[in-house]
């Protein structure tokens, strides 16, 4: 079962703190390699907080942890903090503006049983695997 949603990336507190505390900690990974979903969408997917989902765009896919909801997310929308995980699925094309599309991207989301949210430093090689 998978759903199609619009992905928004943005600032979250743990992502912001990571700029100063460092991006190698488990705490950073837990905060940033995560995906906030709408409660009804979660029910349709039969998933709960801390389950794993695979998020795929036209440029790539990444496994993320379902986050606890702090700020509301509307139906059909997902929120992932800015960071090296979500960058695996952000396309580099800028339509001549210099700016890649980091928000408002169509993605598919489906739950996965076995999956590893990657270690930050090997992320760039992850695509080759």
């Amino acid at each position, binding site marked *: 079962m998978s759903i199609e949603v619009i992905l928004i990336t943005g600032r979250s507190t743990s992502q*912001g703190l990571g700029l100063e505390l460092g991006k190698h900690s488990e705490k950073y990974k837990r905060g940033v390699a995560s995906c906030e979903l709408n409660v009804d969408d979660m029910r349709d997917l039969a998933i709960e907080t801390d389950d794993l989902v695979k998020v795929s765009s036209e440029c790539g896919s990444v496994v993320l942890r379902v986050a606890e909801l702090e700020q509301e997310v509307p139906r059909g929308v997902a929120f992932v903090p800015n960071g090296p995980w979500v960058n695996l699925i952000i396309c580099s094309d800028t339509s001549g503006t210099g700016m890649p599309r980091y928000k408002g991207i169509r993605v598919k989301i489906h739950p996965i049983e076995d999956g590893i949210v990657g270690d930050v430093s090997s992320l760039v090689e992850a695509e080759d695997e």
Partner: protein
Amino acid sequence: MTFNVTNDIACPFCGCLCDDLKVIISDGKIVDVKNACIYGLTKFLNYSLERSVTPVVQGDNGKVEVDLETAVDKSARILIDAKYPLLYGWSCTSCEAQRVGLELAEEIGGVIDNTTSVCHGPSIEALQEIGESTCTLGEVKSRADLIIYWGSNPLQSHMRHLSRYTIGTEGRFRKTRDDRTMVVIDVRNTYSARVADYFYQIEPNSDYELMSALRVALRDQEIEQDEVAGLKKDEIYDLADMMISCDFGIVFFGLGLTMSLGANRNVDAALSLIRDLNKRTKFLIMPMRGHFNVAGADVVFTWQTGYPFAVDFSRGYPRYNPGDTSAVDILLRGESDASLIVASDPVATFPVEASKRLLSNPLICIDPHRSLTAKAATVAIPSNFVGIECTGTAYRMDTIPLPLKKVIEPPEGCLSDVQLLEMILRRVRELKG
């Protein structure tokens, strides 16, 4: 135990550049900070946790610690050997360092870009077509009775923005919270939306349509659709009325506009809306700049080269064409063959394809943090934290320049971005002969 308090410290984190921090030092360590938000507090208390002090070079057998002279020499050689080096970052360092960076880029005929490229670049592109009716933050504090945050979540990104500059302040003409109205326009119900007087939840990628509908309403014309951007027609008329009937309104906008579908066209629509509003009342607009000196990078680049970011020196004079001379596009087309990254972590922020290209060529990283980019760099040279361990000038989001102070000594042998860049520039000139 003695405590020394340094007052009036400007916080080197975000575009708010709050300059009322009090830093308390005891036994040569920062032990507390007053007036900072959690980001500023975290930076001052923890800056030394994830930082390097020794230059590191990637050799055939892995990473090797080297002395500064070796690192500088290797960096200079990488830059000279490159046909089209990319110098990127610049937003988290001082204006003084940015100036040296520009001189270096010109010397080696490279392309120099700052993080505006992937942040408010589209806002500047729109400004260059439409113009911008703006002000400094004190005007908002003194006069604003209508404050709109559009595509921005300040309680998460610019935590003291409300209390220092907008609804939480007492201004000459607006004494209490009741004298002001706060509106949030966003795709989700954020922390900021919860403290607003009015929250308009819109569909993703629909800002352009909403702004166009507002411009129709401003001209007292009929909006033909029943619903635009997920809002009912009447809600849009109400919002337009609110904007027209204020005495002094301002829209603060964030990356919700620049990063969504439409990018610079969204900002184009916003700037046009505010320009149109000035026929009816006093209205202004300001982008919420992220890093503490990204506005400074744009200002310095512009006065020295005429252009704010994505400046190409490969022909011996400045050229500017976002999409052509901007970092992500250059990387995607595989045009650069080396890079110097200063005060930024593009490996963590760029789309993966661009990061891969960055890492496929020699990369020099100058940064106090042990960032992802520094870890992957061919040459990583640690520097000082501007605004903590060395001085410098930075520009706030409204382009007010402020002096950053030094509150504590850096580690032995650790130099500032300015000093390191000057060393590299000197070595480049020696090698070129």
